[in-house]
């Protein structure tokens, strides 16, 4: 195994392990904290794939914003009682089995996947010469300008929706 392969093996192993650890925590707060570690590892994998902009976004948005939001909500809900009850659903074995079969099938399908030419023009050298952020920025603000603006609208709607939903007093 070459050095990059060792590097990948570390990240892949950590990501898988952290995922399992995360979903098995009884206390959601612990789950969120393990998820933070998980996201840092995913960001490392992005760096390894020459996507430094996305690595930054992964830390800033996911770790910095979304996970903090989770923590706030968990604290708002005051879930002390939840910690004492059964943490899995009644028929959890069925769910786990279906998940396992799903994993096996998908892995069987994707195991032999390879890259088929033609390749695009964004080779590693091309990205390096211009800089990763500038490359993705150019694409995003030219070809994908309209989806980009629509994404901002989606976020706006989400903000408004969140406020309306959380403020509403039902019953």
């Amino acid at each position, binding site marked *: 195994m070459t050095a990059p392969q060792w590097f990948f093996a570390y990240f892949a192993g950590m990501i898988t392990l952290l995922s399992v650890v995360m979903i098995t925590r009884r206390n959601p707060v612990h789950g969120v904290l393990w998820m933070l570690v998980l996201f840092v590892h995913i960001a490392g994998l992005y760096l390894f794939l020459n996507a430094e902009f996305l690595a930054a976004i992964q830390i800033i948005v996911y770790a910095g914003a979304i996970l903090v939001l989770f923590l706030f909500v968990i604290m708002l809900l005051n879930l002390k009682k939840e910690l004492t009850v059964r943490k899995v659903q009644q028929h959890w074995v069925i*769910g786990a089995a279906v998940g396992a079969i*799903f994993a096996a099938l998908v892995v069987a399908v994707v195991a032999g996947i390879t890259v088929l030419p033609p390749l695009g023009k964004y080779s590693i050298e091309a990205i390096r010469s211009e800089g990763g952020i500038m490359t993705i920025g150019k694409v995003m603000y030219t070809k994908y300008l309209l989806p980009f603006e629509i994404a901002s609208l989606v976020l706006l709607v989400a903000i408004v929706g969140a406020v309306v939903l959380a403020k509403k007093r039902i019953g």
Partner: protein
Amino acid sequence: MVKYILIPLLPFIAFVITILFGRNHIKDKAHWIAVPAVFASFILAVSAFMDVLGGKVININIYSWIVSGDFNVSMGFLIDQLTAVMLMVVTSISTLIFIYSIGYMHGDGGYYRFFAYLSLFVFSMLILVMANNYLLLYFGWEAVGLCSYFLIGFWFHKKSAADAGKKAFIVNRFGDFGFGLGVILIFLTFGSLEYVKVFDSAGTVAGQTINILGYQFDTITVICLLLFCGAVGKSAQLPLHVWLPDAMEGPTPVSALIHAATMVTAGVFMVARSNPLFNLSASAMATVAVVGGVTALFAATIALVQNDIKRVIAYSTVSQLGYMFLALGVGAYTAGIFHLYTHAYFKALLFLGAGSVIHALHDEQNMQKMGGLKKYMPITYWVFILASLSISGIPGFAGFFSKDEILWRAYLSGGLGRFLWFLAAGAALLTAFYSFRLIYLTFHGKFRGTREQEHHLHESPPVMTVPLMFLAVGAVAAGWVGIPPIFMEHADKIGEFLAPVLGHPAGEGSHAEELAVMGISITVALAGILIAYIMYIRKTDLPGKLGAMFQPVYRLLYNKYWVDELYSKTIVQPTLKASDRIILGFFDAKIIEGIVNGVPALIGAFSRRFRAIQTGLLSTYGLAMVLGAVFIIGFWIFLK
């Protein structure tokens, strides 16, 4: 071009406005919309008539109506000489009758509705005469039938009126079924429904045959007979005449406009319009002539003994329509259209005059309870006299010229024509008799109604009498455009005008013969008037004695040959019984109710079982989704 489109469109706009805003806003001011619209339509029609008189024939396609493979129909107008004459008749009489209706319908609860339907009728009738293809003609044809239904049943709370409307509609269905088949067959034969194309290629189709149930028939004859089938229904000829007398349940202006002057003549117009087809089929022509001639006499005999003033005029209309068909059948299309045109004026006048009488007597229609109205209603009396002289065929009046033309042409066509001429001349005698019987019973002698009615007798208001006077002018002078050449060279203006469309009638006769035929018609007309005078002025007990003496004949005529009873026994009752058994008893009770009750029961049973899978739990739905994905991927792997 806009001018021609506006002719039918203006009444339609009036209809839309009146029907939408009539109930709450316009109410008893409805005539302020309908009358100007139809009058403007009349002005435009005059202008169109002038264009045609100047030698212009307008054939415009406004837009493609239906395009489906080879089937191509456009909304288009054809304004030639024939249409121009019809336009003048329809719009001028409509205008006068609209004005008359202001007075006649005054204070009626459905005042706005009346003007709305009447406007819709004028629109439909104009579409009918202006169409340049058979499908648009059919549209107008059905639309006038619908308006007729609305207006016969205008006082729908009266059971007899509602029944009469239904009867008119259903009887017309029989004829229109044939007409519809005729239109389809025209398309199958000619590949087009446009008049111009059909008539141009009519000659090439002559001699072709069509296979019906294993027998070969001449295609053109079949088409003509099917078209004539529609005309028989719409124009109330034997054997479908039964609806027209009952249609008198409608308001009198409706009887005048729809059931005398315009709609019922649509059949005549349609046959005249299709003359290039009819000319190719001698047997179809003979059928038209025989039906017309027999109807003329048949309806006239019934009119002799009826007591309802409107029914007498209704049977007279059927009889006069018979004359028109007789003319068409012997190939004298111009004479038929000429009679249509003069008849429209004097018959509308008779109806409106009768309406004036009925109005004065507060809805009394039985002539046996009238009498002596001359001194109370002088204007009505005198216009009635003029119209009756016209219909009887007294020289100088409109009816004389047109009726004499028909009789002369029938006589000339020889063989069968002679026989039909004999019938028609007999009908002329009866026409003169019943027309003057009506006048003597209504206006002469002593008043036979109640005291109270006598107290209220009055002449109608000017809004009703002025249209009567205008129509009286028409009833007298309308015939002056068709003076036969024997009296004055080049005075048969209408014949020459219509010749490009309808052609010249065949046959030549000597002047002596023509004068003899004319003499006979004048003689029988005078004889009819004289007999009526003797029976109803001089010896008033004579009708009763005659009725007693010829009891069976009298009862036969009084009961209209029991045609209604015959239809009721042979067609209506069996149909009703069969519907009761099959539709109500089996189809409705078993099949419809079975479906209506069965489907919800099935769905209910189904959902009771399957409701259980809707647990409402998020995991269940997610699991179903992933299981689906698992199956799809598994299937995909399996395929590989």
